[in-house]
């Protein structure tokens, strides 16, 4: 049996209000490729951030044993010194700099006061050759594609003398061909004795490269599967571990809600990426939603769900739109304007409540009224008392826990912030609500309350489109489910017929077929 290079023992990490990791254990042998799989938010990235020192020693419980020694990293530099290098999902390259400059950024070669550029570029070229890149290290990063940028990231890690390489979803932004090349590169590194941890959603990749697979769910390690058998581990086997949780009473029942006529319908809806107009982010999508219906859209990150929702909401994302939008059976030509969408009674509740949803430096009251100031003002003069009354009404209705609606939103917990965001859009009195990950990053109790709000909305005859990457949530809350992958709708099922396995299979099949 090979040497254990890394052992993470009983790692527990809590964020205010949330236990992100709960006694997680991970063992990585020297010279193996270890895959870490789990749903979004299961805790994979958190675990790797603990390992690399982004969350320094003391902010978590448990031990990291590397090469037989207990390590206490206080920052990334500490872990990198020992050869633990992490490559993040979001590429961390400066586009305006050359490949060589990027590779040695923060790690410059030469004298303290004078960088040795000759050595920098010579060394960089050497590592570029190792990852199979033909570009000169003097090429500007912005001129090469994302696939090659990923390789630069790996070369950068090698330049740091990596012994344990962690790749966080390295292929999420790559096409099939580039992904395969990257995986093959990993296999060749393995032959040279490198140890790697790969985090990925793509289970076919896991089966292809991994020696061992550790499944994480809800912040705990579920199992470690050996992939050394004659047959590669089946995807069904992994999925079972990933999603196999019990669903009992996590979702309130929605009873006696009559589903009415079709309220909103889109057909052949196609949207292109704002920066790379040749890329389709929503590809020929057709769907509809009826009054009083909750329609789930499930897909992995990057499937195009948010892009779809935002493009419906006054074309607030993307370029070169095509397709038709019908509201109440009538064709609607909407302008590229959020205000126009609100006028047509569509609301988009963002997944990023802090970034795109709330004005954190302002009060609950101000945030609640922001999307519908007209309703509480006359001749653009705000009626402060009416505004206060409205904010109070929604505070009571949505059970926002706060001493006063004058409280700054930035001081609220995630669950309460989410409720304020919902209050804001409910006050805009929409007919169609596009809820994008409405329960992301909030605790179970608050989730339940949000589900109750969704049920109330449906009961009031509103159309709710629920976008989520949590399978149980989609299954538990929806009347009907659309499955999205790689910008397309790849499946539609009634909630009664849907199972986690069926949905996952639909996604994986469509991905491989491409």
């Amino acid at each position: 049996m090979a040497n254990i290079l890394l052992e993470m023992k009983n790692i527990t990490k809590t964020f205010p209000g949330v236990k992100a990791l709960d006694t997680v254990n991970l063992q990585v042998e020297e010279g193996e490729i270890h895959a870490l799989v789990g749903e979004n938010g299961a805790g994979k990235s958190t675990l790797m951030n603990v390992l690399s020192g982004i969350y320094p020693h003391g902010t978590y419980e448990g031990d990291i044993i590397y090469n037989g020694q207990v390590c206490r990293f206080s920052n990334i530099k500490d872990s990198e010194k020992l050869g633990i290098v992490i490559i993040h999902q979001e590429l961390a390259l400066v586009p305006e700099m050359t490949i060589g400059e990027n590779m040695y950024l923060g790690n410059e070669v030469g004298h303290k006061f004078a960088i040795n550029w000759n050595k920098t570029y010579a060394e960089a070229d050497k590592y570029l050759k190792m990852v199979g890149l033909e570009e000169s290290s003097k090429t500007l990063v912005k001129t090469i594609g994302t696939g090659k940028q990923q390789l630069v990231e790996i070369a950068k890690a090698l330049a740091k003398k990596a012994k344990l390489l962690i790749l966080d979803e390295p292929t999420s932004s790559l096409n099939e061909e580039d992904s395969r090349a990257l995986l093959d590169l990993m296999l060749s590194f393995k032959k040279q004795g490198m140890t790697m941890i790969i985090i990925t959603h793509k289970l076919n990749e896991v089966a292809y490269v991994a020696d061992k697979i550790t499944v994480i769910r809800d912040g705990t390690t579920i199992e470690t599967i050996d992939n050394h058998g004659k047959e590669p581990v089946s995807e069904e086997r992994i999925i079972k571990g990933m999603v196999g949780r019990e669903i009992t009473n996590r979702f309130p029942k929605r009873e006696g809600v009559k589903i009415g006529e079709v309220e909103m319908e889109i057909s052949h809806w196609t949207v292109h990426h704002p920066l790379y107009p040749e890329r389709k982010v929503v590809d020929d999508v057709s769907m509809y939603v009826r009054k009083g219906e909750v329609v789930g859209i499930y897909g992995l990150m990057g499937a195009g769900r948010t892009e779809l929702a935002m493009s419906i909401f006054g074309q607030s994302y993307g370029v070169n739109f095509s397709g038709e939008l019908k509201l109440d059976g009538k064709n609607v030509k909407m302008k590229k304007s959020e205000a126009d969408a609100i006028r047509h009674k569509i609301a988009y509740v963002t997944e990023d409540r802090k970034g795109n949803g709330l004005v954190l430096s302002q009060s609950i009251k101000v945030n609640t009224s922001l999307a519908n100031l007209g309703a509480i003002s006359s001749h653009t003069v705000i009626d402060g008392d009416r505004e206060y009354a409205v904010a109070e009404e929604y505070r009571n209705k949505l059970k926002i826990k706060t001493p006063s609606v004058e409280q700054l939103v930035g001081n609220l917990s995630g669950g309460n912030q989410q409720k304020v965001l919902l209050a804001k859009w409910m006050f805009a009195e929409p007919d169609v609500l596009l809820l994008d990950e409405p329960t992301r990053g909030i605790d179970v109790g608050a989730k339940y309350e949000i589900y109750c709000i969704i049920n109330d909305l449906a009961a009031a005859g509103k159309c709710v489109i629920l976008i989520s990457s949590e399978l149980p949530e989609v299954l538990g809350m929806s009347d009907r489910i659309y499955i999205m992958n790689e910008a397309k709708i790849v499946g539609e099922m009634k909630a009664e017929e849907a199972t986690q396995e069926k949905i996952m299979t639909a996604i994986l099949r469509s991905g491989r077929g491409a």
Partner: protein
Amino acid sequence: MTMSEKRAAKATRSFNLGEFFQKYTMIIALVVVTIIFSRWPGKEGLILLPSNLTGLIAENAYVFVLATGMLLCILTGGNIDLSVGSVVCFTAAVGCIMMASGANIWVTVLAMLAIGLAIGVFQGFWIAKLRVPAFIATLAGMYAFRGFSNVVLNGYRVDITNQTFLMLFGNGKTSFVPDVIRQQFTGLDSIFNKENTALAGIIGENFITNFNLTCMVLGALAALIFVIARIRRIRVQKKLGIIQSTWGQVVSTVIIALLVLWVAFKLSCYRGLPYVLIWIALVLGIYAYITTKTAIGRHLYAVGGNEKATALSGVKTRNVYWFAYANIGLLAGLAGILTAGRAKGIDPVYGEGYEMDAIAACFIGGASAYGGTGKVSGMIIGAILMGVINKGMIIVGVDANYQKVVKGIVLLIAVMFDVLSKRQKR
């Protein structure tokens, strides 16, 4: 209720010193600075003399007006307008030339405001629509309009001779609202007399003969209106349950009312109510209303707090920027009028550095350098604090160069307090 709950409830009700200091840092600083200067050995009480108080208002008129406009820009996300100093000079130059060639004063005044507004709209177009960074667009304006001022003035000073203009916008002997009450009722002269020792004891022997009763009455009226408005507001808020305790509101109402009376009294002792103060009060009042009570004011704060969220709420965020920069142009036009009036003319170098005074007043007054927070009331305190420090240093005879050093230090410390108090909250 258990013991610990009772204690907790009591703690929240009782006076929290730390919070008090945090909320009123700049007011406390203003009081402390004023006390220091008024107790300065050899210069006791000089800064509180009626003439100095009147001077403080006249000298800082442009700061109040420009800082109001600057606050709107800063609210949108820490954006500033570097061009205002040059725009002040340019509008004043055009106005002076117009008057020198015999144009009607009201036409001139309107033209100056219109030119300021046009410049603001133009710069706003570059910033809002073409997305040129505000700093750069207004830096360009700063150079360009300084140059235009020189061109218009041909490099020379132009004087104003129109007495009406000087009376309304200047600070000469005539630039005060006349004491109509005492002019009407000359019998009052026997009361405002040094022989009337009781009243002389209150007003002061030096001031009693020329005590401006009209100014005092107007001041008392303003205080009364303010108190009535506040009482009504407090009642409504109490009814709606917005505030539980009326204590703080009552105290602040009384303090502000007393302050208004005190200022009115001081002004009455000198020459009365300067016209400039009316313009300042109008601007501050209008913009305090805009920022707190109107939709566009709300949008300014929202854009500065989170532009993306605001855009997704259906607000045309670009137009909000445009509004802010158009406004500061208009106010720069007004500041140009006041500057020309005070200097009785215009010189090609006037207005230099005005933009920095306005920016400093906003930041000292608690506006966030990242946008989204800041109030007109805070900005007023910031401007007054700077004015008092300026005036105080002149009175105690600090070297002009060191005055700048002190200003710099004050700005730095004020913003540091702001940053620190915000960090504690997070």
